[in-house]
């Protein structure tokens, strides 16, 4: 949290510091828009700070100066993608006027909206999954399925942590983990160094295209478990096949509500037909993100959840 507060312009900083301590810890997003009051998202509901305090264009410039350490050219790639990952794994989303070149986004100029998402790593989120995904000394290839905001990435991150650290009380030894982090969300890297707690045995290819990154990882880092976010393109299937042939388990996420839903999507068909994945985990969101709805085996049959009424 301090990493974020340090960046903020003075007026915003003061406003947030006036909040009571327990509220401050629950902030999920800080939204700043030029010439609008400051909005916070606390526990999923919006919370407008003092209406008198308006975020000015000057302050927006200051904020971007500080994000880039006074060197805008260091953010070229980030300005093309529309977000910056900062120390602590927090992420600042940007919106404003987009400059295009040959039909492709070149950068965002005149940035007018900032969305600072505070990262809360949920340590232990994936513990209930361990008995389903670990079998006879190896982690099974798994696809985590969920709609946006259901906690797929949180789950993935925690799985990465569990795999690289091992689980002492279940006699699961630690493994080498390779993460291909195309959107810098799993590891939250700053200058290549993961900001989230992921254990010692993790190698991260930050901001690398997935299919290519998976091949690179397999060739160069010999991971035992490969972790990727949001698969779905044709090239991904090939890379996944390659990983399996090399005896590497793959844990990936995909957008969707359920397995049946995925089978209808043409781009995913080849992925699912190849019997690549041995487990499917479906996530939903009720009051909070990350509820496990079902765990399915390779044939799409549901495996009963422990403690669930039959």
């Amino acid at each position, binding site marked *: 949290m301090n990493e974020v507060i340090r960046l903020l312009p003075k007026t915003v900083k003061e406003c947030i510091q006036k909040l009571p301590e327990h509220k401050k810890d629950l902030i999920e997003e800080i939204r700043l828009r030029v010439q609008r009051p400051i909005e916070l998202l606390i526990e999923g509901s919006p919370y407008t700070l003092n209406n008198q305090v308006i975020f000015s264009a000057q302050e927006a410039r200051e904020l971007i100066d500080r994000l880039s350490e*006074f060197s805008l050219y260091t953010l070229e790639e980030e300005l093309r993608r529309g977000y910056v990952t900062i120390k602590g794994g927090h992420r600042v989303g940007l919106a404003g006027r987009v400059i295009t070149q040959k039909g492709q986004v070149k950068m965002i100029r005149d940035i007018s909206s900032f969305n600072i998402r505070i990262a809360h790593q949920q340590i232990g989120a994936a513990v209930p999954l361990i008995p389903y995904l670990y079998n006879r000394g190896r982690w099974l290839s798994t696809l985590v399925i969920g709609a946006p905001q259901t906690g797929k990435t949180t789950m993935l991150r925690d799985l990465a942590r569990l795999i690289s650290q091992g689980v002492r009380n279940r006699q699961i030894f630690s493994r080498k983990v390779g993460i291909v982090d195309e959107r810098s969300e799993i590891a939250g890297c700053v200058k290549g160094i993961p900001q989230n707690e992921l254990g010692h045995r993790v190698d991260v290819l930050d901001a690398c295209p997935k299919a290519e990154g998976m091949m690179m990882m397999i060739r160069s880092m010999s991971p035992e478990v490969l972790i990727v976010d949001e698969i779905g393109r044709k090239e991904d299937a090939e890379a996944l096949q390659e990983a399996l042939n090399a005896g590497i388990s793959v844990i990936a996420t995909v957008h969707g509500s359920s397995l049946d839903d995925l089978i209808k999507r043409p781009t995913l068909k080849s992925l699912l037909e190849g019997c690549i994945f041995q487990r499917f985990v479906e996530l939903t969101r009720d009051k909070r993100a990350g509820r496990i709805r079902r765990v399915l085996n390779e044939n799409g049959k549901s495996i009963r959840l422990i403690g669930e009424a039959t």
Partner: protein
Amino acid sequence: MIKIIGACMIIASTTGAGMFISRQFSERPKQLRQLRSALQSLEAEIMYGLTPVKEAASRLSGQLPKPLSLFFEKLAVKLSEEEEAVTLQSAWKESLEAFWQQTALQKNEKEIMYQFGATLGKHDSENERKQIRLALAHLEREENEARNAQSKYEKMAKSLGLLAGLLIVLLLL
């Protein structure tokens, strides 16, 4: 006896002044060349390393020879101050101002450096490169001029100092 000592002192002081002026003529092209190589290193840092200005400045301050390293050192220190009002532009200006007195550099190149500082860190690397190239071209022109002035005036300033001293001594005898 006193007369001779006085005469020696006059000659020594005017010669000294002449040497000082001629040194300015020889130092300026040298420092201009260093300044250009500093900007070239900065360009490399920006283009290939995408290094933030602060880091680039502290790295350059280690690489460069004396008067110039002071500028980048100061810049790096100013930028790492955790103050509200610090901007790259203000830090650049202040460091430039403080360091300028210790050099043989003149107003023209100061203007060039000001203008370059005003654009630094505001653009993508392609544009930064253009700005650096522009500053380099301007500095090169100044350097050529300084070299011309050096070949014309360096020796002259030296001998003029000595001769002026002699002239004064002869007049006073």
